[in-house]
């Protein structure tokens, strides 16, 4: 059965696009048919993060408005056969997407893919609402940082009221993906802990992605971290999160505290 999942956050820059690309690649690598959809009309970036920026001919809006067929707009990944991208339009403004157009395209995608990952734009405007509108479940991406957690709470409220599921009185499954987590700073009390964020937002945890240099490297070359055979901590964390998304029970490995010289010398009192 096909699953439509929105990747959302409210706040910008927390890792929605990175997470969409990484989870999409991980699921597709496991043999699932996956389509990642960019909803950020006018400011598309999923194509760049996926390394497909020069292959976009038709986009989401062309399909939603009937100017192109979905099959013509889908870009198949060159590395993973079962991974596809539907790019946002760069030249149109965000009002070009209509509820009816999005509903029709999402409906078509459901018939073709096991997973449809909708990369939401930041904010709580039309684009963000359309990205979540037809989703079956949501991944809320947050950083362990006050403004991000606050915006996530706001988004959770919208997921429970502005989606088709919510309007039908059905449950909208929401899971938290905590990104840019720094175990050292968290354990020293400089950064919110995983438990702090979970307690405040009270939604289940999909995964914890440690702060990693590999993320920048991955976007530099246009290959999501989960595609690279050389496993990084962030890549592994995304792979595990993708397995959980697929229904497997995988314990959340809390990124272990890197032993710095300082913590080695002073042990637990390093804080």
């Amino acid at each position, binding site marked *: 059965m096909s699953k439509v999942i929105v990747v959302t956050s409210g706040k910008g820059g927390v890792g929605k696009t990175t997470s969409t690309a990484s989870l999409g690649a991980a699921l597709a690598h496991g043999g699932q048919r996956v389509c990642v959809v960019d909803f950020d009309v006018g400011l598309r970036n999923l194509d*760049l993060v996926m390394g497909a*920026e*020069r*292959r*976009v*001919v*038709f986009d989401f809006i062309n399909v939603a408005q009937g100017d*192109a*067929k*979905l*099959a*013509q707009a*889908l870009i*198949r990944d060159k590395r993973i056969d079962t991974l*596809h991208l539907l790019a946002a339009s*760069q*030249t149109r403004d965000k009002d070009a997407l209509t509820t009816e157009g999005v509903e029709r395209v999402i409906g078509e995608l459901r*018939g*073709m893919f096991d997973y449809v990952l909708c990369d939401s734009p930041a904010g709580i405007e039309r684009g963000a609402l359309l990205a979540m509108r037809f989703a079956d479940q949501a991944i809320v991406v947050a950083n362990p940082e006050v403004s991000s957690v606050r915006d996530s709470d706001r988004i959770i409220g919208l997921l429970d009221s502005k989606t088709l599921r919510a309007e039908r009185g059905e449950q909208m499954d929401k899971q938290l993906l905590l990104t840019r987590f720094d175990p050292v700073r968290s354990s020293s009390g400089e950064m919110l802990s995983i438990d702090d964020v979970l307690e405040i937002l009270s939604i289940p945890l999909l995964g914890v992605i440690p702060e990693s240099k590999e993320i*920048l*490297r991955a*976007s*530099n*070359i*246009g290959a999501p971290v989960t595609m690279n055979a050389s496993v990084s901590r962030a890549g592994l964390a995304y792979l595990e999160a993708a397995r959980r998304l697929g229904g497997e029970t995988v314990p959340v490995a809390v990124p272990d505290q890197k032993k710095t010289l300082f913590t080695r010398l002073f042990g637990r009192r390093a804080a």
Partner: protein
Amino acid sequence: MSLFRFLKSRSTAPVARERLQILLAHERVSLGPRDLVTILRDELLATIARHIEFDPEKLSVKMDRAGAMSTLEIEVEIPSDKVGVGVPARASAA
């Protein structure tokens, strides 16, 4: 030698810079005032893509002006197995 290779394998910024330069050069033109070559390129791309599955990177459009004569040069690389294919088979499968 190994140090050199190590440095080379770690530095991805040049790749990022090159990707951005290519992309932005194209976007600045297509988002700003459009010249004829860009309009032609985009429309040709759309027309060809309607009928054949091909790599958009393999399309080059050049225009030359020399005196009274202008030439338009279009080069498309189409994989031979894609000739005659209407719509990508996999993508159209329900």
